[in-house]
């Protein structure tokens, strides 16, 4: 099988952009990707494109990948929309990697886009709360804040995880996001603010939850044999893993483990010949603060049940031995559903090449990084390990 490299990556600003639709947002990310290719990119080289998208509120459910790629001038190529809820982008990247590995295409675009602020708040909730086991979880009166709160409550009960531990995730990620010019919320918050946020789904408050976001991202994946045509400093795909789980949390034997993450991580470690210890930095799926703590455990960064003390000891902040979400994460950078996975790849590409926009959040000398993208409350998970 072919070795795979990433030679370009771009991202739109994340935020609330009433004047831009999915085409314009995706084009912004595409142009940014194109500009990042050191030795230039002839768009005719792109043979195939996989676009992550949950549905953008339902207004372009059919043929959206052809729509956004033809807008960029990529007419007539192989393209498809990839939908696995919030993990759509992570799976779009994996689909592009498998396309290149198989030898079918040499240069493939992986991207994602979501437009979440075009519909009313009520419609948005109808649209968003349907990626769990809808017949049971939704019809018991929960959306995703409620589902992650069920996990958080049990994690606190079983392992003594504290309210403060959840808030430390929010504080850290806002601190990082304040240094990211493309983040939705470029401001720091205090631990006290984070602890005292208005309750959304107890034990989770407003500062435990990510926002709704417009945004897009795109990365160029290619056969490693031709990577040097594009740049002298490609980033290589060392391994990837994807796994699914029972959609309903009540069906899972262990409420506080995302088995999809555990298995996807295991597969990525095995394929790359690496272990959790080798990972120098990570972008993980912090849609809710508890989700980042679960990721530490399920990806093997710390022991099961020890995520609270792990963040408290500072391991995962910039300057720690395992920085997590230097971009600001979903919490502060924003979570435009379909774009989130390839947005993580954009961040990791720049971190590993030392080209992060603001040097204050550059992890110096990092060679190996992991990105982790979760669909729903863990129904689908994609993990990719990248190395310089």
């Amino acid at each position, binding site marked *: 099988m072919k070795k795979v490299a990433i030679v370009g990556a771009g991202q739109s600003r994340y935020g609330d952009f009433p004047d831009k639709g999915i085409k314009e947002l995706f084009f912004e990310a595409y142009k940014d990707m194109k500009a990042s290719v050191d030795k230039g990119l002839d768009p005719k080289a792109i043979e195939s494109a996989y676009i992550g998208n949950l549905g953008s509120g339902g207004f372009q459910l059919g043929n959206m990948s052809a729509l956004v790629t033809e807008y960029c001038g990529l007419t007539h190529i192989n393209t498809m929309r990839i939908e696995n809820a919030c993990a759509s982008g992570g799976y779009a990247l994996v689909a592009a990697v498998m396309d290149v590995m198989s030898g079918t295409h040499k240069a493939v675009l992986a991207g994602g886009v979501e437009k979440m602020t075009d519909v009313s708040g*009520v419609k948005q*909730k*109808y649209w968003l*709360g349907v990626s769990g086991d*809808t*017949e*049971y*979880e*939704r*019809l*018991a*009166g*929960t*959306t995703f*804040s*409620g589902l992650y*709160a*069920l*996990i958080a*409550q*049990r994690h606190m*009960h079983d392992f003594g995880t504290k309210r403060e531990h959840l808030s430390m995730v929010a504080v850290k990620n806002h601190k990082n996001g304040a240094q990211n010019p493309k983040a939705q919320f470029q401001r720091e918050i205090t631990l006290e603010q984070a602890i005292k946020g*208005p*309750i*959304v*789904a*107890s*034990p*989770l408050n*407003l500062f435990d939850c990510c926002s709704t976001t417009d945004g897009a991202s795109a990365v160029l994946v290619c056969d490693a044999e031709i990577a040097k045509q594009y740049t002298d400093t490609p980033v290589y795909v060392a391994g990837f893993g994807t796994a699914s789980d*029972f959609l*309903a*949390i*009540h*069906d899972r034997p262990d*409420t506080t483990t995302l088995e999809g993450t555990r298995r996807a991580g295991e597969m990525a470690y095995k394929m790359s010949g690496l272990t959790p210890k080798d990972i120098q930095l990570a972008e993980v799926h912090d849609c809710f603060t508890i989700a980042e703590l679960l990721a530490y455990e399920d990806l093997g960064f710390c022991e099961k049940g020890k995520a609270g003390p792990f963040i408290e000891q500072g391991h995962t902040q910039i300057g720690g031995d395992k920085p997590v979400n230097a971009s600001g994460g979903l919490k502060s950078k924003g979570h435009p559903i379909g774009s989130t996975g390839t947005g993580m790849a954009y961040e990791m590409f720049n971190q590993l090449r030392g080209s992060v926009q603001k040097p204050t959040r550059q992890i110096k000398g990092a060679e190996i990084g992991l990105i982790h993208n979760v669909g729903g409350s863990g129904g689908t998970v994609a993990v990719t390990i990248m190395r310089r």
Partner: protein
Amino acid sequence: MYWRTIPQRYKMIGQKCKKCGAINFPPKGVCKYCQTSSEFEEIQLSGRGKVHTFVLISAGGAPPEFAEQEKAGGQYPVAIVQLEEGPKVIGQIADVDPKEVKIDMPVKAELRKIYTEEEVIRYGFKFVPG
């Protein structure tokens, strides 16, 4: 979509796997425990169990069809309940001060109004203390 799950919502009918004997609820095509058998016998669950974990849904956390309920009470509890026959299932807890809900609290299922949509009242099980 709601009416398809009426045997579960009104009567809590579970599936006992003829191969491994474990009880699936809500139903599956293939037993979620042994993952080999599709042969089940229907069994009536008691509706009794204890709270495995719970959440108190406040403003912002409620789906639009439950927003009215949230406004009326300020918050409402939703739990995953471990049923005495083995399976866990999600459901609301009624007739309780939300502050009193605790993990391991004993509960039993009752038929209640769940929500109203397009002027049709949907009924199903909720849990109450006891």
